[in-house]
Each structure stands twice: as C-alpha cells, then as structure tokens.
C-alpha cells in the first residue's frame, strides 16, 4: 500500500522532472550547448503563469500556451547571441554566456517581481482524486498529465514532421542537413526556441504545485541535468525515462532513507547507470570530435 503509493507518486513527479529536462536535452542534442539558464527560464515560466493568474485569473494550464510564443522569441534571441561564435569555441563560450544570461534573468525577475515567494492557488487546488489507493491533488495530476502529453507530442513532432526530422538531422550532421535544403541557422534557432518554450511550459506546469521566486531555477537545474544524463543527452525518450526513474528513486529514497538524504540515492543511481552505460540509458555511441 505504502509502496504502491510511493511508486505512483514518484512516477507523477517524474513526469514533471522529465518535462523540465526535455528542453535541456533538445538544445544540447542539436547545438551541443549546455544551457545553464534553463532553470531560470523555468522560473520565468512560473512567473508569467503567476502574473497572468493574479491579474487576469487565467489558469496556468491555459496561460502557458498563450505565453509560449514569447518564450520562443526569448530562445531565438538567446540564440542570436550564441550564433556568431565559431563552432569550435561554442561549447565553452556558450556555457559562460548562458550562465551570464541566467544571472541576468534571475536578477531582472527580482527587480521586477521582488524576491518574495509567490504561489498560484487554483480553485480546485484542494481537491483530491484517488488513484489505486493513492491520493493525488488535482493540480499535481493535471500537471503530470500535461507534462506527459507535451513530451509525447514533442516526440511525435520530432519523428513525424519535416521540421522535426530536420531538427534531428541538424543535430547529427549540420552540413548534410544544409545540403538537403535545411536552413541550418533557422532550424538551430527554432530548436533553441523550442527548448526554451519547453522550459517555459515546464514553468507553467510547476506554477500550481510549487512556489516561485527569482532564484528558484537553481532548485531544478541539478535535477534536470541528472535526468538528461540518465536518459542520454540527445534522446527525448531518454529524458522521459530519466525523469520517471528519478521521480521513483526520489520517492523511495525519501521514504526509506531520511528525507534530506534522498538525493544520495538519486546520484548513486545516476553514477551507477553511467558506470555501465557511459552515454546514458538511451544515448547513442559517442560522436567523434
């Protein structure tokens, strides 16, 4: 009873971890860029959900889709900064630049929204549903469900549409993609945009179940990295699986170990997976430099 509750609970939380990580995965896969500002974009997503809820009473589950274009714009903008850097130098330079952007985003949020903690309390936030004997709040349920749907849709987008395939092709080999008529710069920009949109959506999904403050991004970033690496850095399926594994590991760790030490389980699992599969669960073989 307790065990099944824990697992179910972990799976639902894991879906949200997955969504937080997917954007990071996509940007890394195509651009080889570790986006250090990912957590802060999630934070912006939460703030935009919060403000639209406070001012206009729009549910985050709706507003996250309304603000998505803005996040796409933000992503494209960040890409414009990174684009002129020669590929050879991009890996390290982009690390520092996205870190700088992370500082800028967090501090700007603080100057705009103050450092106070904010939460979104939906009318049905107290309502609870029973799933196989496990009680889950409506917001947690809806957030997880939306995360799952979004990730599946994104996966389908990548494999079933021309643009999606172009994104993957660009990730594998930019030149070959360009020779087939893919505007590599556009696609890269769109990919970065999509990654940022996913982070923004993750913010929307988190807003009703978590709290937001300007530096909240740092609460997610390590977990997001863990998920991305667990699943293999280029695989969306991997991110979903990584998220689920992390969620369950955390739930079990939190229950059977002291809660504050639950992350030991997470990281030991993480290192264990890498020990046996050095490129993550769904990662391919390493590419040559």
């Amino acid at each position: 009873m307790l065990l099944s509750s824990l697992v179910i609970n972990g799976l639902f939380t894991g879906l949200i971890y997955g969504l937080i990580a997917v954007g990071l995965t996509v940007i890394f896969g195509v651009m080889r860029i570790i986006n250090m500002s990912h957590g802060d974009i999630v934070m912006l997503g939460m703030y935009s959900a919060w403000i639209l809820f406070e001012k206009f009473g729009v549910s985050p589950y709706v507003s996250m889709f309304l603000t998505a274009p803005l996040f796409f714009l933000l992503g494209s903008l960040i890409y414009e900064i990174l684009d002129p850097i020669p590929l050879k130098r991009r890996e390290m330079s982009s690390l520092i630049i996205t870190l700088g952007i992370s500082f800028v985003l967090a501090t700007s949020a603080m100057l705009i929204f103050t450092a106070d903690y904010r939460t979104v309390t939906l009318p049905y936030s107290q309502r609870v549903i029973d799933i196989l004997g496990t009680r889950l709040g409506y917001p947690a349920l809806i957030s997880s469900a939306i995360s799952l749907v979004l990730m599946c849709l994104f996966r389908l987008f990548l494999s079933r549409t021309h643009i999606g395939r172009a994104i993957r092709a660009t990730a594998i080999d930019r030149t070959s993609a360009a020779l087939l008529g893919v505007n590599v710069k556009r696609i890269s920009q769109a990919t970065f945009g999509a990654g940022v949109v996913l982070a923004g959506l993750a913010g929307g999904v988190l807003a009703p179940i978590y709290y937001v403050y300007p530096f909240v991004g740092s609460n997610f970033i390590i977990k997001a990295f863990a998920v991305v690496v667990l699943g293999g850095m280029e695989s969306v399926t991997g991110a979903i699986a990584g998220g689920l594994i992390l969620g369950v590991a955390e739930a079990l760790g939190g229950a059977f170990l002291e809660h504050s030490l639950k992350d030991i389980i997470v990281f030991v699992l993480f290192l264990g997976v890498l020990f046996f599969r050095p490129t993550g669960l769904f990662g391919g073989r390493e590419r040559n430099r």
Partner: protein
Amino acid sequence: MLELKQVTAGYGKIDVLRGVSLEARAGEITALVGPNGAGKSTLLRSISGTVVSAAGSITFKGIPLSGRPPHKIASMGIAHVQEGRMVFGSMSVEENLLMGAYLKDRRGKIKESMAFVTGLFPRLRERMRQQAGTLSGGEQQMLALGRALMMRPELILLDEPSLGLAPLLVDTIYSSLETLNREGLTILLVEQNVRRALTYSQRAYVLENGEVILQGRSADILVDSAVTSAYLGVPLEGEDRLIRQSL
C-alpha cells in the same frame, strides 16, 4: 547547365582552388579527376555553398550561386552527396529518405520519389525501418544517393561514391548512376578511380594543385593514355593489370 568561371576558393588564408573554370552540360556525366589535395572536393563544396568562394562566378542555369547559403542552392535543384556517406546514423532509412524531400515543393511528390528510389535500390526497401548507422557501407552509399534523389535534383554532385566500397558494390553504384543519367539527370562526379570515372562519363576535367590542367571528352582522355599517365603519374590500367596478374 552549370558553369564555373575563374573560381578561387579555400579555407582560411589558403586557396585550394585557383581560377578554375568548368562546365557541366545538361544530361551529361562530367567527371572530375586528379590527385589527392587537388581541390576536387573543395570544388564541389564551393558549388553547393558549404565553402564560400573568394572570387569568380558560379552559375546554374544562368543564375549566379555565389553568396547563397547551401540550403538555397539545394532548393534550386542541386544535390550534393558528400564523400564518406554522411547518412543520419541514428535516424531510420525511411527518415533519411524523407529528409531528402524536406524542401516544401518536393513534399508533394514523396510517394513517387520513394517508389523511384526503392525501385533503383531494392535493398533500401527491405531496410526501411532500420537505423541508417547499422547499414553496411554499400547500403549507406545507396542511401546517401537515394536521399539525394528524393530531392528530385536537376544536377547531382557526387563525391567519391566508390570510396571504401568493395568492388562488387562499386559496380552496383555505377550501374545505377548510368541508369539515372539515361533518365536525364546531370551528374558531376568526383572519383579517385580514374579509369572508372572516365569510362562512365562523357566529359572530364583533370585537376591538379587547384587548377584545371586538362579537359575534354572522356573517351579522348582515356585513349590518350600517354597524356594521362604523364599527368596522373600512374599507368591507367595499373590496378586491374596487377589483379589480373595475381589471378
């Protein structure tokens, strides 16, 4: 169909091509041969836009190509199959082929193109769902060519299609090239195997140190073995003769 005039191009400060002029006529196979480092691949790259030419003009059906990015050039009907079978390894064969039809105006004809390519290379049809990276070298070359054909190009730039392939497969590839040419495709072919290149092509250019040193009908160049051996430094029949001897 394709015309290069006094093209100079290279990487950084080093020019690999120095004032190359060349022409590929519609419906013909034009071969480009020459020693390693002569600039053959660079020439193809400057046509497809992956290398930016520093001087000279490149025109395709009278439209200048210089300064256009690769994807624009691709959309004009020029396909470039790079050296080393650069297929998208973690995508399926089908997805690779679909990528060939990425451009908007090609999407409508996916079914026909697919039928054509699988007709040409039946082995690809058997492996539609397989990951391209797990194909054998020959199959990957077929896939690279097939993918390019999905673009329904008017001109195809082929870089070393026989590289690293067992002789058996080289024959398959070349016979398919012949078929394609018969159906009206213009081909600009870079090949290390000089004899083969000259046998299959109508016209040929010999490139050395970034300059064209010889051009003309392939048959003429092939026959004029004295000329070729002087420039290429290798007796043309060398390879086959050696094999035959040992047999």
